[in-house]
């Protein structure tokens, strides 16, 4: 159950998208999520869908990996779409029962929302499939740097993130051990009454918290003993570089925006 968490979902294929600067990818995928909310016609969604498909194909990552990213979310999306269809009014009424009704507007809105979330998830999956977590973390730190001026402790946030990334495998290991230890004592996490199953979480969580505290104390003592002082002025092992292709990617997104605005104005 935990093996997937270890490595993120990065799939190395060395495509054009892989080689883009992680900052460009992070900003552009965020930007895409924002402009998607401007789409309000089938034409706009078809255009954005086509664009997303081109991006997905150009990553050279097998489509199965994208499906793995979308699959766990598809139920939440379908759930909101069904809600949308059952509860909205307007247009021709196809079916009616109590407070529920399926109407023309409900169906159209449901379709729009389905497309919107599907595209958002596809694009954010492109980011996580083509960029290793450590590089995205570097990009986050680099993009947050201007916030130092308003006293946001950017270096410390980056330090926390890299410590967390470093210790995820350790704590997962610990969790697995604790669960096995409980199983060896006869705890069964999947059978028994509801209350019994819920109670079985307690003997996992308490040792987990305690061991995390102990580890934090040990690490803190080690770092304090070595006189560690924050990230300011420290040199970096991985240095991010902005290339021409990153600017090109931004220009492509500008074109996408212009087309989207055009479609909105003329429909």
């Amino acid at each position, binding site marked *: 159950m935990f093996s*997937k*968490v270890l490595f*993120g*979902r*990065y799939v190395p294929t060395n495509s054009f998208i892989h080689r883009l600067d992680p900052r460009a990818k992070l900003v552009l*995928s965020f930007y895409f*999520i924002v402009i998607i909310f401007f789409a309000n016609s089938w034409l706009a969604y078809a255009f954005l869908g086509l664009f997303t498909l081109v991006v997905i194909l150009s990553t050279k990552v097998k489509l199965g990996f994208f499906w793995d990213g979308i699959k766990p*979310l598809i139920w*939440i*999306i379908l*759930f*909101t779409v069904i*809600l*949308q269809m*059952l*509860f*909205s009014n307007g247009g021709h009424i196809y079916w009616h029962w109590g407070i529920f009704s399926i109407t023309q507007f409900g169906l159209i809105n449901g379709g729009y929302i389905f497309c919107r*979330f599907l595209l*958002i*998830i596809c*694009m*954010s*999956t492109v*980011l*996580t499939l083509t960029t*290793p*977590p450590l590089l*995205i*973390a570097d990009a*986050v730190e680099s993009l947050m740097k201007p916030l130092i001026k308003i006293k946001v402790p950017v270096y*410390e946030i980056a330090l*926390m*993130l890299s*410590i*967390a*990334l470093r*210790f*995820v495998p350790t*704590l997962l290991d610990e969790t697995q051990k604790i669960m096995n230890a409980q199983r060896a004592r006869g705890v069964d*996490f*999947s059978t028994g009454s*509801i209350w019994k*199953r*819920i109670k079985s*979480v*307690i003997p*996992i*969580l*308490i040792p*987990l*918290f*305690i061991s*995390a*505290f102990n*580890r*934090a*104390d040990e690490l*803190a003592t080690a*770092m*304090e003993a070595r006189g560690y002082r924050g990230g300011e002025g420290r040199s970096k092992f991985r240095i991010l570089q902005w290339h021409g292709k990153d600017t090109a990617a931004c220009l492509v997104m500008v074109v996408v925006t212009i087309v989207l605005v055009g479609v909105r104005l003329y429909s």
Partner: protein
Amino acid sequence: MAKTRIRGIIYAAQLAILLAISAQIIIPLPLIPFTAQTLAVGILATISDIRLSTWAIGGYLLLGLVGLPVFAGGTAGLGVLFGPSGGYLWAFFVQAWLISLVNKKADKYLIVGNLVGAFSQLVIGAIWLKFTSQLGWQAALTAGITPFLIPAVIKAVLAALIGQLLLRRLREPLQLR
């Protein structure tokens, strides 16, 4: 316990991972799976001060943002944070703040703070659901709150109990200076 700032930051990192792990601990129940995630947020907010819980929750969301599948069901990325259910994740901040605030006023009754926090988390998640999915208020509140109410109450009670046990061991709440 956290005497220096660096110690607090390390605690925040460890607590962020605990949130990530607890989101993957799922007890299969009929209808809605019971995850230990909101329970862990409750415990976290009960045992640490407002600043440390903010850092830890921020760290957890960042872990998901950089692509580790740490959100419920092994999901990750911007798409989850800004998807229909993203509000329940952002609302962890408010949940933790309210728990800390209420507990400061009435630390004999940790359950009260946890109930207030858990309920507000559901409300904010449902409001987010309403706006991102363009639902009506009735639909969003019915679907976004009611199914989770009973589990939320159970988790709030458990969080208060476990938090109490941990606090006794820690002697004083964890802090970030």
